[in-house]
């Protein structure tokens, strides 16, 4: 993963979550949630469906505002939007039908402050080089996932938020995701992944959401 080693341009921040509470509709998903994460650490989020894993990731990404509590990055000052320091990969790949894989990833690279010229190399690194010139609507779900992964490589960002990163991927693809997460952590980055698949990484922080109702 030679691409990730260029991460050094941005200092990896540490994450401190204090007393986080969030309700969706009338349901309290979690409250008094504290999480600490240092640079180079990987956090695995687990918990039954509907316990707020995706919501927590979207809170950390800054898409949602919490009902209570704080999400702080250091040394990133509070006034800077955390959005510019992180990658968010959700249920949707962020790819537009009608454009080729190459065009999609290059546009996202520009949008996210990366280098569109690295698109070819990034697609190669995720094993999607042969797909570059194909419109994304002809790709299978797993192939789309791979193309979406290339986004993580064209714009180096210290924080990765991955929601179910293994969905639709074959064995090779899943190995690739593990490899990418490992490389990101080794380069001093910070990864939060919501998944029940084993990550097989040393120094893994584990958070389980949604214990039994009290």
């Amino acid at each position: 993963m030679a691409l990730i080693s260029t991460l050094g341009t941005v200092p990896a921040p540490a994450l401190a979550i204090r007393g986080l509470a969030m309700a969706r509709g009338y349901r309290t998903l979690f409250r008094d949630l504290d999480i600490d994460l240092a640079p180079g650490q990987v956090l695995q989020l687990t918990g039954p469906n509907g316990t707020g894993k995706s919501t927590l990731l979207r809170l950390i990404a800054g898409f949602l505002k919490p009902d209570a509590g704080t999400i702080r990055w250091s040394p990133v000052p509070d006034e800077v939007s955390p959005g510019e320091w992180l990658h968010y990969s959700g249920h949707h790949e962020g790819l537009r039908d009608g454009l080729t894989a190459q065009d999609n990833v290059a546009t996202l690279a520009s949008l996210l402050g990366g280098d569109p010229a690295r698109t070819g190399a990034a697609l190669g690194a995720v094993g999607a080089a042969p797909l570059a010139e194909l419109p994304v609507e002809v790709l299978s779900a797993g192939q789309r996932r791979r193309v979406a992964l290339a986004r993580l490589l064209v714009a180096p960002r210290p924080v990765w938020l991955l929601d179910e990163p293994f969905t639709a991927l074959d064995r090779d693809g899943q190995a690739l995701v593990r490899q990418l997460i490992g490389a990101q952590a080794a380069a001093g980055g910070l990864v939060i992944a919501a998944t029940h698949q084993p990550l097989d990484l040393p120094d893994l922080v584990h958070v389980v959401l949604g214990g039994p109702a009290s």
Partner: protein
Amino acid sequence: MNDARPTSWLQLANPAVFNRWADRLLWPLVIATLGLFAYGLYGTFFVSPADYQQGNTVRIMYIHVPAAWLALFVYAGMVVSALGTLVFRHPMADVAQKAAAPLGAAFTLVCLITGSIWGKPTWGTWWQWDARMTSVLVLLLVYLGIMALWRAVDDPLRAARAVAILTLVGAVNLPIIKFSVDWWYTLHQPASVFRLDGPTIHPSMLKPLLIMALGYLGLYLVLLLVRMKTELTLRRIDRLQRLAAGIPGERA
């Protein structure tokens, strides 16, 4: 910057306080409204003189003009509610706004229909593309748009924010629409029309007019309270149903 409203205050405290105050205010308001309408209608039909130009049709003014005032007043109130929703995140603001929109539309409709009926004997036509009526028509369309948006979005909080933004955009646009319609009318004004707005209004007409306006205002406030109470009850029903269904993850 991530500190937000506490959940309990959002969910219960304020609506409960509101309900207590609403119950206390409702009946006095109903009685005051009935009294104002009785006094106002008496003034309209038995005290107020016929206009020297328009004769008895001027009596339509007493229900037409207050409706026009209320149409604008309700929108102004909705702008305040929209700011309450977006800036202060006040939990009652969107309830008030949702309750107000159909009332504003109703007053606007009253204004248009009474204006149209007034126009027939005065202008000789049911509808005149006159600057005022045209602006009021556009105002009605804006109200209908706001109501349509309320219906289209399921989640009440999300709907409230979308409607609040639309209300503010409308508030910026309404003066421009008014200006453009006035400007358009001065270009296209037919020569034969004589204007409804007399330069002066005789005090004997002004007094019933103001009383009727207060009656309209009272009616609006009564209906606003009733509709807000209904909306709060509906939200409570929704909440109860979800709780009764035993949604997992509930740890209240």
